[in-house]
């Protein structure tokens, strides 16, 4: 049984269809990223899974519970990280984690959680005094206080510095490794690419892709490189048969699998024409490009 089962979920806000017949699953011990442009329906989908919002139609089961009618039982095994905090500004770090640990009553060690998210030195600071990244860490600690079997994390590394991101990613990986099903709603494609075992992409309320990154990349290999801003692409095609497209000021893409012969031809032509070759990368598309392709060019 999947930890999260969403089947033909539809959510309407008045006349607006926020989620339109979306189906996907999230598995135990995996990180599932829910991706999509702003207003795609990610938050509405996640809120139905958390039991916070009622679906208009469709069926959702989380750990076997119906979140709408069995939210209380589900909440005992569910950790939630809100994007926008959810902590009273005058609440102190350790005191807040203790409060949530007590609400869940599973014996989570508040001080250890604060230490795990790197906030030991800020344990007496109030929420309003924390930086954006520290707030994210505290928010993650509150989700972990549930010792969850399923965790819904909304933008967990938003506003966090590089070291903090690594720490948070490590915690999320560890969480999944312990058997928790982690559902990650994020705008950060790089984040999803690094963390997620599986991607669910929603656009304009509809599911447009569901699978591993390898699934989404399948059939979309490319060779990407940077050189002078104005190389003669016609001459390149005439000389080598390579069809390249300009995708940035000095960035080019060839839709082809990473064949050594082709890459050698490219390098040779560039060298003969006196152009430099930078950042040569061959293989599957980056998630950002997969996302652009699937959503019609709108990367977050």
């Amino acid at each position, binding site marked *: 049984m999947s930890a999260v089962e969403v089947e033909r979920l539809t959510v309407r806000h008045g006349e607006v269809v926020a989620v339109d017949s979306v189906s996907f699953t999230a598995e135990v011990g995996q990180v599932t990223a829910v991706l999509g442009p702003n207003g795609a329906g990610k938050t509405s989908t996640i809120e139905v899974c*958390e*039991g*916070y919002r009622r679906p208009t139609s469709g069926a959702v089961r989380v750990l076997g519970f119906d979140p709408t009618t069995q*939210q*209380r039982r589900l*909440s*005992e095994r*569910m950790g*939630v990280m*809100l994007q*926008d*905090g*959810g*902590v*009273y*500004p*005058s609440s102190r770090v350790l005191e807040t984690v203790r*409060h*949530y640990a*007590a*609400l*869940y*009553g599973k014996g989570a060690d508040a001080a250890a959680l604060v230490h795990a998210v790197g906030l030991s030195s800020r344990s007496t600071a109030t929420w309003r005094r924390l930086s954006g990244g520290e707030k994210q860490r505290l928010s993650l600690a*509150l989700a972990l206080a*549930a010792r969850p079997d399923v965790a819904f994390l909304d933008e967990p590394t938003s506003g966090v510095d590089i070291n903090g991101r690594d720490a948070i990613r490590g915690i999320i990986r560890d969480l999944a490794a312990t058997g928790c099903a982690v559902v990650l709603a994020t705008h950060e494609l790089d984040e999803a690419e690094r963390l997620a075992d599986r991607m669910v992409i929603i656009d304009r309320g509809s599911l447009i892709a569901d699978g591993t990154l390898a699934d989404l990349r399948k059939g979309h290999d490319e060779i990407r490189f940077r050189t002078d801003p104005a190389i003669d692409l016609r001459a390149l095609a005439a000389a080598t048969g390579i069809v390249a497209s300009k995708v940035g000021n000095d960035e080019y893409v060839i839709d082809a699998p990473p064949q050594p012969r082709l890459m050698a031809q490219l390098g040779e032509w560039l060298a003969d024409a006196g152009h430099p070759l930078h950042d040569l990368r061959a293989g599957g598309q980056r998630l950002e490009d997969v996302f652009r392709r699937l959503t019609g060019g709108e990367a977050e």
Partner: protein
Amino acid sequence: MRVLLVQLRAELRRVAANAEQLLLTLGIPVMLLVFFSLVDVLPTGTKEPIDFLAPGILALATMSTAMVSLGIGTGFERTYHVLKRLGTTPLGRPRLIGAKIGSVVAVEIVQFAVLIPVAFALGWSPSSPNWLLAVLAIIVGTIAFAGIGLSLAGRLPGEINLAAQNGLYLVLLLLGGMVIPFAKLPGVVRAVAHALPSGALADVLRDAVSSAGTQPARSWVVLCAWAAIAPLAAARLFRWD
């Protein structure tokens, strides 16, 4: 029950740590009681100002806690998404509301434990008081004021809710027969004042402790009507985020 107590403890800790709320719920009522009892400037119509003031200040204390303190706190919790987050924990909404009710009751007990001895120390001598009826009036008043406070808190953004609650507090204080007798208000204003929950609570409390209500039966009807309508309005208007 354990979860409810955890949340109740957190609610009480927040109240105790909030200097503004302590000023509102305890400081202002005590100051008004002491000042206007010692400085005879109000046209109370009683031999001792304290005999008029004490029931009115108990009504004011009830309004401060059940409406303003609860309303402002809940409004900011909604704005800061605290309610949304708590709603995803095993606490759930019913127990969250239960904890808030428990917090209001606990604060009111502390208020009365301070105000009543202060009033007696200032010479308050209630004649043939019916304390059970007074407690009943406080309970009904608490329900009415909590309904009003949560109706505003459940709809208005945090800062606007703060201003609205404080503004309403002032209006109800001045027009509610708490420190200024109904008889001293102009005709139209007096009619409005009798229809307000603050006026009704002050009147039934005066009647309960000193048989000095101006129109206690009508005030009971008014108070009960507010206690019935305001929570329904809150349930209808309240948004959790």
